[in-house]
């Protein structure tokens, strides 16, 4: 699966795109996995206004993932 970080999240983590194989089965499991690798990123992913999109659709709460999923973590948007 493909994981994308945007805006300040990418700077914090030091990466903007990562392929994960095997893929975590759920969005929450993915977040826990990323938190194990990088606690500061984990805290930021739970920060105020951070949204997650699965296959380019914003989801609230947990969601099922597969190896073909694309998950993006979106910090608060700035406008253009």
């Amino acid at each position, binding site marked *: 699966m493909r994981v*994308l970080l*945007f*805006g*300040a999240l*990418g*700077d914090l983590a030091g990466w903007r795109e990562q392929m994960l194989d095997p893929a975590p089965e759920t969005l929450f499991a993915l977040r826990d996995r990323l938190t194990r690798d990088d606690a500061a990123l984990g805290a930021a992913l739970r920060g105020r206004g951070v949204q997650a*999109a699965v296959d*380019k659709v914003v989801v609230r709460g947990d969601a099922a993932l597969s190896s073909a999923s694309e998950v*993006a973590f*979106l*910090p*608060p*948007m*700035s*406008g*253009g």
Partner: protein
Amino acid sequence: MSTVRLSSEPIQPGALLAGFCQGREETGAVVSFTGLARGEKGAVTALELDAYPGFTDAAIHEHAKTAKTRFELQDVLIVHRIGRIAPGEPIVFVAAAAAHRRAAFDGADFLMDYLKSRAPFWKKSHEADGARWIEPTARDYEDAARWDTPMRKDAE
């Protein structure tokens, strides 16, 4: 019809406007807006716009559809720069076509307020003492809220 493009190449507002105006025997009014990156008297060396291709443009497209219905626009063109943008360079170009001028002015105004405050971009300002991610200003939110309620048309 509405067209939304994210461009990592410089925007040419004149050429975009000329192209947008072509073949419009029933239009009557085209309003365009070009936003330029501001240097803040030398404090800002560059802006950097992060976008999510396929998500950012889809969200803008949805808003363009709303604008078309709400203001009876015939056509909308939105071209937004992404990546690194130097002061003075165009960052956004919006054009709205309508049968009459008020709809075109309002449509372009509405689209710009959305783009400035709610569109899914992440903006970084590169300054002499480092870079920082920026959020919409209070004024940007107020400008965008002007369109929430009541609808201007209803108030007439």
